[in-house]
């Protein structure tokens, strides 16, 4: 039952991927896409979707959209500018690895935070400790070396949105 719900939840994203990749929009292609999505979902769905109910919740999708727009425009622009300045003048950097705790529950939320951190130039997640819920982040220009201080500078915004989207 759970698996059937998971497959149903995967049909829409996978069909969307199929249609966008194919690039021709007709009813027949849609049908083929749904068939392919069902077969692939049958093969792998239970590994990807643990709680199928979350896929059908439009509020989470709304927050994902807001977060995506905010992240891709403002945060990325700031971070890019910071590292470009360092490329022009490499003497100003202050690198090191800091420890950052995270307080979200699900795997997907943790991965969203980690990938958001890595995707902003200037910070890269080097290692992740699943048991103690800590990430080790290589930061090119350290402002604060304590755990909570570093979290405030690096990942607090991401965490707020990630818990809204996935928890």
């Amino acid at each position, binding site marked *: 039952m759970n698996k059937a719900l998971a497959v149903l939840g995967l049909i829409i994203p996978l069909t969307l991927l199929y249609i966008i990749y194919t690039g*021709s929009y*007709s*009813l*027949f*292609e849609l049908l*083929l896409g749904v068939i392919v999505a069902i077969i692939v979902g049958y093969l792998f769905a239970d590994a990807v979707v643990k709680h199928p109910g979350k896929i059908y919740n439009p509020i989470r999708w709304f927050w994902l959209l807001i977060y995506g727009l905010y992240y891709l425009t403002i945060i990325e622009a700031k971070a890019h500018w910071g590292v470009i300045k360092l490329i022009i003048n490499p003497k100003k950097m202050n690198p090191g690895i800091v420890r950052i705790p995270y307080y979200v529950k699900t795997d997907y939320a943790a991965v969203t935070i980690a990938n958001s951190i890595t995707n902003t130039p200037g910070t890269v997640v080097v290692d992740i400790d699943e048991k103690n819920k800590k990430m080790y982040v290589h930061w090119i220009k350290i402002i604060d070396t304590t755990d909570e201080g570093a979290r405030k500078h690096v990942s607090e915004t991401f965490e707020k949105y990630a818990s809204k989207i996935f928890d």
Partner: protein
Amino acid sequence: MDAFWNVFLWGYIYSTVIAIIALTVYGMATRPHLVKKLILLSILSDTANLLAVMIGMRKGFIKPPVFPGISYTNHPVANTTQLAKFADTAVDPVPQVLVVTAIVIGLAVLVFLGYVLILLYQKYGTLDVRLLEAKITGKGGKK
């Protein structure tokens, strides 16, 4: 002038291909490790395939040999002028066809050789040709 540049560039491109073939053949002959030989063999087969495709190129090229704009439901009848125009700008498809299967077959053969290498290592404990020779024949290797 333009023709000179074309000939020069194509001479350069063909010489790089020939140099790669020479390097790989030389390396396969002289490097002692079997995995290195396998890597160079893969590069050699790819280069041969590339040379085949290169011979199929044409002067006014840069169109793949696929008639564009056809989908499952939208398939207009192509008339002779369209087809002639398409064939005039497309590259030669025959070498590409020969190469498509050659790539996958080459992969399968290399996978097979990889299995053989693993078995060889399990039996003799080395993949160096000189040591292997010594172990198989029971005498000293190359003197």
